[in-house]
């Protein structure tokens, strides 16, 4: 019975339904049911002219937002705040994502991987005095990591430039990193 009453009220959409009409349909017991639903804030009753009208909760808010200017402006303000809160949440989320991404990057650390591979190549290719030609390290890494020569030299340049105190380069050779306009084709650990 309660469900039937609610369904009837809901079907009236934002216009609401007259209380008298409900009584006609559902009889005298309808009063108790309506009172029960009012207490549970599932429906709202308001006097319009001489008649009492009944709405479901959602329809009532829609009704107010369209017909009550005060409610309309309050709602707009609330929505604005809510929107701002959502925006802040969104920003915080994206920042969190960025931080997480950076952490993940640090964990995955492709540059760190390159350094490990580079150091291994350097050890394998160096002579007794420690120098190794870039070309030999490049061949090994490009083959194992499936990266292009350009990519290798970009990463090698970054590595050597970033860790200047750990690597030393020397001019000459057919290929290598370019510094001061010179091909530096040899590298060693310091």
């Amino acid at each position, binding site marked *: 019975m309660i469900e039937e009453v609610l369904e009837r009220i809901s079907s009236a959409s934002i216009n609401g339904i007259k209380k008298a009409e409900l009584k006609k349909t559902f009889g005298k017991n309808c009063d108790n049911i309506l009172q029960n639903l009012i207490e549970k804030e599932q429906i709202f009753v308001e006097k319009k002219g001489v008649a009492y009208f009944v709405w479901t909760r959602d329809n009532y808010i829609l009704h107010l937002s369209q017909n009550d200017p005060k409610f309309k402006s309050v709602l707009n303000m609330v929505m604005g705040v809510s929107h701002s809160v959502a925006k802040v949440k*969104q920003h915080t989320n994206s920042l969190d994502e960025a*931080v997480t991404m950076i952490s993940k990057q640090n964990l995955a650390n492709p540059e760190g991987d390159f350094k490990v591979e580079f150091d291994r190549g350097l050890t394998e290719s160096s002579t007794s005095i420690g120098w190794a030609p870039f070309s030999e390290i490049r061949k090994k890494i490009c083959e194992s990591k499936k990266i292009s020569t350009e990519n290798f030299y970009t990463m090698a340049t970054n590595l050597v430039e970033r860790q200047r105190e750990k690597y030393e*380069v020397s001019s000459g050779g057919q290929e290598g990193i370019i510094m001061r306009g010179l091909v530096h084709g040899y590298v060693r650990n310091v």
Partner: protein
Amino acid sequence: MYAYQLESNPYPSSPTPTEKDARILGGKRHKEAKSAILECIKELNNKVGGRDSNDGDFRVITLVQDVGSGKTHLALHIKNLQSRHNTVCTFLDLSTISPKTMPSLYNGIIKGFENDFFVQLRTKLVEYIRDRAERGDNSAKKVLDYSFMNKLSGMTIRQKADDILSGKALVSAENLKQFLVQWFNYHESNLIRNIITNSFDAVTNLEELLGMMAAISKLTHRFLNKIILYEIDEFDGNQDSIEFVKGIINAHLPASILLLISTPSGYAEIQGKNPSVFDRLEKANYKIDLAGSNSQDELLEIVLEYIKHNDKKGKFTQKTQDELDEKIRVLYDEFPEFRSVRSIINILYHAMEKSAELDLEKIDETAIDETIRHTYPGLKIRGSIMSVPISDFISIRRTCGDESTGEQLKRAIANLANFAHEMGNIGKLEKQNHTLDVVYQDPYGSKIGIAVVVNENHTKNFEEISNISKSSALVDKLVILTNSNIPSSESITIVNVDKSKMVDLLYFNNKYTDHKIAASDNEKAQMLAKTVNII
């Protein structure tokens, strides 16, 4: 008067060092390399001391490092020390010999010795002949051309020998030849004859060249009790050089050390051209490691050593050292051009000259700026939008990273926004709030907020950015300038402020607050404003 009240410029100006320049040796690594070479000299000296030398008394030292790292300087420095370490040294720069024929290489080796060396050896050899003559060796007397008439006239053998040494008399060349073959081998005989007559024969082949070198070593050890250090510079993949060096190594010159100086690329060339020589180099007795010879600290030590060495008045105090130190560090960090001993010394030579010209008490930013403009006219600060002069760059860059940098940048951004407003690029500026450093309207009426978050501690940056992001609701677009590497999000535009951008901003700010923004700066400043998303 030069900076630091020096009476002369302490820095050498030649592109490659001279023996005189090499008297000063600075830098921890260079000094360690020097010690290693001296250790080898000492070890061989101890081994051959008090006995005849043989072919087991030969050492090979390799010195392989990049161009401009101070290898030649080190070799010449060691040469300067020869008298102190019971050594005779010859320096041969293979790059100065072309074609590399046997006579030209031999000539180069002979010229590489000090003149005094041959004078000493000649004296000892004449004294040797004199001693034999005094002991009754007639063939020795004939060498000295000591005749019966000399004896009758009261002249002693010693006086005759002294006359020969002083150039008043000559030896008998024919008798000398006959005397020498009795006591010395073919090459030793030839060499002694050459030394005593002051006339060196040309060698015609490698065998002869090596024979003569072995003779020099043997006689030097026997008569002067010294070992020979052969320094061979610019050794590379040249076929003639390789053959020459291979011959020397195989000849096992007695009581000798062969110091081979090369570059990594030269070393690799040798590896490719002659595996046999390469293998010998790989098995060198000593491999001098100049690793880190172009590192920042090493260059600083070398550079300061020149001034310290010449600072007779004690004007180069710790404070002035630190000031110069900071400037050189900036040059090293920002310009790859100045990351070698040769290039930084060149800069300081010119800066020192400039200091004398401008009567400066010390080498300041202006002297360095002027120097770089004249000696490296094409050199620009990498990535600089404002075309910051090198002098300003050095002074601003030195303070970048201070605790006050963040605040200075905030002021710079506020002034850049003011400038953009004055130029009509952006609308009205609004009052700052406690989180955003600049708030203004763009030409379309959108509210833009800019915050500067620059700290050395990146965790602190993340926290601050997180807090500032909460203010994004107050503006239509939020821009955060930071030195942390954070990607932009949908709602926040992150602008990475690297050191070159910091310098640009601080330089702009200095000019703006001093009302020195010229018309020619307008375009650059607008470009700078674009890079930080103000425009």
